[in-house]
């Protein structure tokens, strides 16, 4: 096997780097994380001419090699560390034809690292419309590099790029700019202290952590042998370097790059005038939000029903086909119920990621940041917090990661801490089933009480997020300068391929990430619920049968009969048969319930009951609440397992829940008071292990996720307590 060529793809944000990556690799790509950190690592394989293959690594977008964030730091580390297995044989710098000047800044820095570098000028299809002409040949000569003029939209220029990669050995490795002129004295001393190292590389290592905390220094650790400069001195030198590079670039572009100014304006200016307008801008943003919510709740209902039905019949099929036994029960009640609980979320998650990808791809998201910044600031947030807060309605995990674009650490920390209050899609199944149970029919101004309740829960989530942001803003004594610089990219028609890849990727990682936890919990629960050590558990059948014979059916079975009364009146002849069948089913359920009460899980539930009783819950809900501290969506699955209905079909669980009687009050367990109390608890409690794990990684300390867990859960408990005690 011939050696693969290692290629690093690097470029400014919004240059279409991802499109180039998709064009080169097609579906031959995988997304993971860099070890130990949550920076996304995208890599793929590209087939080159003459049977050669290239391993393409898509590095995080960056404006320069002067790092200001963890993502950028990853890119720089890789370029500096020759021992890294992914260290590139050749770097491809992707630039955008309209912003070539700015993109060349990064290009010259990489070129000066003596890495063979290819310049891709992307979006070539826009050139004629924007009145741009480039003398490619002259530019290649001036930059001493090869250039590929590419249009990912028209799919041109990719072949030339492949050729250039395959021929990487012929690329120049000489530096374009001598950086040492910015401080000759200092660079000379540097050279004397580390004679073996490349001077520009050293300079980058030294300045790595000027704007940002350091990753591990891989090239040199020992700087003691010469006097270092202060941070602000180094920063000033960085500014000098930037100016030096721009002088070089301006000189070259003057001869090679021409823009006809009259052609350049138009579409963008007109759209900006409307979309960032003081009034219309906000109206349009609001309408877009409404559309997104409508899509998530309206349109995803149909695929969700199909999935629900599929799992219900799959469970039944397995129960009827496989020989009865422990193994079959594990599959049907444990594993399948668990998987169903994850898969049901796919339509909603996919829709949400679709919209977020569309907003990002078109360039609209930056306009939202611009519009919202001043509004969010009094709450200690930034315009950039809007994106995480909106993403939080799908899932807090990607939302917390999306805060990385916020440069100000205090604003970023507050955003991370409050984002889990927004109503994520995992809360939805809990809301839907409780609302269906306890909120009465009827409507107000044409909106049903149920819809209104759901909407208030969303609003409450946002309100809680904003309020806690205000409090945190007061409490947190963090001094950090706000470096709010947002690029407003040109508007683009989204490339369907890119959007499709994003949606697929994000959905997949959600399903497998959350899926593992839910599945594991479902299996553990199933085991705890279907095993026990006491005599009551072992002899449940005889005990319950005797009890029913002596005292008749329990109150919950009576409700079960009532709710199924209508089934009896279909056909007179069948009534006695049907009646008998119903009684058998009720008996089986009572036995199952009795068994559960005396299983391991039953004893655990009884132990925590005193804590949840003031909120209006019994031990079964207590178990469901407890297990959903791993992940909220486990609630419905847990109740399904606990109520031993054998499948995860919501209608059936709902009927069983409606039939539950609170032994103390002799009234239905799920009534308005306990229902509202549950809804509020789920609205505010921090019940998601994965979010806590992500917060730990993003804040690099257990302090923040721990305080999140304590504060949110305590708050949820108090609110639920007050609600239940005043409504009861």
């Amino acid at each position, binding site marked *: 096997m011939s050696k693969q060529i290692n290629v690093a793809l690097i470029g400014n944000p919004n240059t279409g780097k991802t499109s180039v990556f998709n064009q080169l690799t097609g579906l031959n790509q995988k997304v993971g994380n860099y070890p130990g950190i949550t920076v996304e690592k995208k890599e793929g394989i590209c087939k080159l001419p003459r049977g050669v293959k290239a391993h393409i690594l898509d590095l995080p977008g960056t404006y320069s090699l002067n790092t200001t964030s963890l993502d950028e730091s990853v890119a720089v580390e890789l370029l500096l560390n020759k021992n890294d297995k992914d260290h590139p044989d050749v770097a491809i710098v992707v630039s955008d034809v309209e912003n070539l000047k700015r993109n060349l800044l990064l290009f010259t820095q990489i070129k000066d690292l003596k890495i063979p570098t290819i310049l891709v000028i992307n979006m070539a299809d826009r050139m004629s419309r924007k009145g741009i002409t480039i003398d490619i040949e002259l530019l290649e000569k001036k930059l001493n590099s090869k250039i590929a003029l590419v249009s990912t939209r028209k799919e041109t220029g990719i072949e030339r790029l492949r050729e250039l990669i395959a021929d990487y050995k012929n690329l120049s490795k000489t530096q374009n700019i001598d950086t040492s002129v910015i401080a000759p004295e200092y660079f000379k001393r540097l050279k004397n202290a580390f004679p073996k190292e490349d001077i520009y590389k050293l300079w980058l290592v030294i300045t790595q952590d000027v704007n940002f905390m350091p990753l591990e220094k891989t090239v040199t650790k020992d700087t003691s042998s010469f006097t270092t400069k202060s941070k602000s001195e180094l920063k000033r030198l960085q500014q000098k370097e930037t100016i030096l590079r721009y002088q070089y670039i301006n000189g070259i572009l003057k001869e090679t790059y021409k823009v006809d100014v009259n052609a350049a304006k138009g579409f963008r200016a007109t759209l900006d005038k409307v979309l960032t307008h003081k009034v219309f801008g906000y109206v349009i943003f609001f309408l877009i939000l409404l559309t997104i919510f409508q899509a998530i709740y309206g349109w995803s209902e149909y695929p969700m029903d199909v999935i629900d039905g599929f799992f219900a019949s799959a469970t039944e099929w397995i129960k009827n086909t496989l020989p009865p036994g422990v193994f079959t029960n594990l599959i049907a009640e444990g594993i399948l119920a668990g998987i169903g609980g994850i898969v049901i979320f796919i339509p909603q998650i996919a829709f949400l990621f679709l919209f977020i990808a569309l907003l990002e791809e078109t360039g609209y998201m930056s306009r939202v940041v611009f519009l919202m910044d001043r509004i969010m600031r009094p709450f200690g947030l930034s315009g950039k917090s809007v994106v995480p807060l909106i993403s939080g309605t799908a899932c807090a995990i990607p939302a917390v990661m999306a805060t990385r674009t916020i440069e100000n650490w205090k604003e970023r920390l507050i955003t991370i801490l409050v984002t889990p209050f927004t109503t994520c899609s995992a809360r939805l199944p809990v809301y839907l089933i409780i609302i269906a149970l306890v909120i009465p029919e009827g409507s107000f101004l044409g909106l049903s009480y149920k819809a209104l309740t759901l909407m208030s829960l969303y609003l409450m989530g946002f309100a809680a997020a904003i309020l806690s942001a205000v409090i945190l803003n007061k409490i947190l004594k963090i001094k950090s300068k706000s470096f*709010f610089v947002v690029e407003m990219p040109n508007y683009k028609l989204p490339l369907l391929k890119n959007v499709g890849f994003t949606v697929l990727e994000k959905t997949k990682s959600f399903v497998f990430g959350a899926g593992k936890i839910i599945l594991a919990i479902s299996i553990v629960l199933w085991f705890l619920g279907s095993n026990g050590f006491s005599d009551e558990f072992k002899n449940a059948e005889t005990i319950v049968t005797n009890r029913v014979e002596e005292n008749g059916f329990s109150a919950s079975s009576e409700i079960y009969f009532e709710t199924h009364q209508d089934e009896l009146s279909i056909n007179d002849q069948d009534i006695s048969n049907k009646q008998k069948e119903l009684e058998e089913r009720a008996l089986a359920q009572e036995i199952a319930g009795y068994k559960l009460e005396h299983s391991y899980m039953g004893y655990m539930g009884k132990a925590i009951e005193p804590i949840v009783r003031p909120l209006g819950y019994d031990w079964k809900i207590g178990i469901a609440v407890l297990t959903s501290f791993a992940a909220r969506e486990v609630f419905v699955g847990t109740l399904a397992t606990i109520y031993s209905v054998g499948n995860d079909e919501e209608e059936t669980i709902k009927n069983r829940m409606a039939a539950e009687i609170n032994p103390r009050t002799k009234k239905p367990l799920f009534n308005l008071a306990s229902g509202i109390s549950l809804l509020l608890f789920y609205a505010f409690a921090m019940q998601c292990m994965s979010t806590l794990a992500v917060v730990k990684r993003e804040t690099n300390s257990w302090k923040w996720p721990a305080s999140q867990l304590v504060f949110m859960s305590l708050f949820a408990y108090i609110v639920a307590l007050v609600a239940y005690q005043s409504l009861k």
Partner: protein
Amino acid sequence: METTVADLKRGQKGIIKEFTENLLPIKLLELGCLPGNEVELVQVAPLKDPIYINVNGSHIAIRREMALHIALDIIDDTVVI
């Protein structure tokens, strides 16, 4: 008082003179916001903050507090409404 980016009206242009605060983020420079370059004000959000500018072909939004540190000479008085 020196004229700064924060004083520009919509559509107005200026040439950046200097930074009155020494340590503005390097990112600003990288995006092309350098002395000698032309700035055009594209849009201002309500309460005059943030400010959306076109500098040297780069379209960026910055907060008012930062704009106050970028001194310039106004070169064009025609205001587009």
